[in-house]
């Protein structure tokens, strides 16, 4: 009999009420029960737990799992590498990125990511962090934007960009999300993003809204943030980019959106394209006044 079964049999009340003493007691009993087969465990489990009790405790257990992971986010490795990349001359022009303007002025990083996407006069378009960094890499270092767009995720120039993104967003950790809708182009792309969010297409009739327009829903065990609500949008927008434990990779929002659209069974979104920026703008504006906590740690 496993600790798992025992804890389930004892139910929620005990889980909340009894402390270490009980746990130790159970620990002692484990040794005696080790040879019991899976069949018995399963039997006990079935007869002992009503569906709702189990549902509730599995959510609780997932919280425990995430809490245990929250310390020492491997994204720190990417932040450190990104800081190097920011300060080290690179590319055909052999320059560093200290003059990159992310909206608050050349080289100003503090809080910059929490105010993106925004309109940039030099490019005359609204840009998210990744597309703006591509502008910097191209203008300052002479690295071709197309080479970044064409690279597979996590490889070559996209891997370099990931690290830079990790560094830049770490300098906004704890900032309040403040995305402007003053400029007409900012308003226009928000409206396009909203329309895209509700657009159903493809063989499964999916839109972003199919999964992300209600509170407290989940796919498998994974909660789905309601991106139409300020709280849900802030929770999602404010915790990406993130390190994903399922594949041990650092994902930027561009990567996150790419995989959303894949699972939506849509065609392939071009990296840094207006559709991806429009969807980001919809999320980010809805998240306004929320807390920017990236880089996060995700399943």
């Amino acid at each position, binding site marked *: 009999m496993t600790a798992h079964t025992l804890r389930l049999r004892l139910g929620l009340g005990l889980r909340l009420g009894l402390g270490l003493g009980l746990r130790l007691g159970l620990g002692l009993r484990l040794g005696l029960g080790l040879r019991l087969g899976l069949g018995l465990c399963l039997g006990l489990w079935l007869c002992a737990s009503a569906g709702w009790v189990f549902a509730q405790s599995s959510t609780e257990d997932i919280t425990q799992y995430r809490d245990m992971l929250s*310390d*020492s986010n*491997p994204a*720190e*490795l990417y932040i450190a590498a990104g800081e190097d990349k920011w300060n080290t001359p690179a590319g055909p022009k052999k320059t560093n990125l200290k003059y990159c303007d992310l909206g608050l002025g050349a080289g100003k990083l503090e809080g910059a990511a929490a105010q993106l996407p925004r309109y940039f006069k030099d490019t005359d378009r609204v840009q998210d962090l990744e597309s703006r960094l591509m502008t910097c890499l191209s203008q300052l270092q002479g690295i071709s934007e197309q080479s970044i767009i064409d690279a597979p995720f996590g490889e070559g120039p996209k891997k370099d960009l990931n690290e830079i993104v990790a560094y830049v967003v770490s300098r906004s950790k704890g900032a309040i999300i403040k995305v402007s809708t003053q400029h007409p182009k900012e308003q226009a792309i928000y409206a396009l993003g909203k329309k895209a969010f509700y657009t159903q297409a493809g063989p499964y009739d999916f839109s972003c809204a199919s999964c992300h327009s209600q509170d407290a829903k989940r796919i498998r065990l994974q909660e789905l943030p309601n991106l139409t609500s300020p709280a849900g949008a802030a929770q999602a927008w404010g915790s990406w980019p993130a*390190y994903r*434990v399922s594949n*041990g990779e650092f994902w930027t929002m561009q990567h996150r959106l790419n995989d959303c659209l894949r699972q939506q069974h849509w065609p392939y979104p071009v990296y840094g394209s207006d559709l991806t920026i429009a969807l980001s703008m919809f999320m980010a504006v809805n998240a306004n006044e929320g807390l920017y906590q990236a880089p996060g740690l995700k399943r």
Partner: protein
Amino acid sequence: MRIRAQENKGRVDVKILIRHDMESGLRKSQNGNLVPAWYIHTLKVEAQGTEVFNAQFGPAVSRDPFVNFRYQGAKGDKLIVTWMDTQNDSRRDEVIVS
């Protein structure tokens, strides 16, 4: 490597994060071929020249490994962290306990 070493009341808490793919040899790449095993097998930590921690890993330690341990030490201790992997790569980092 990211090493955090902080002293509190004579006890030093050490957290180490290492960038490493920790390929188990069982994972298939996109073209369907097995990716060969390649993982860190040994991680050791010396404090002021004396070994205080030694970890041995198989392929079932997670990608970008993390370990946390504690030893009796002091602020200013020099820690040397060394890892070795199955392709005979190794890396050594130093950090001063704060």
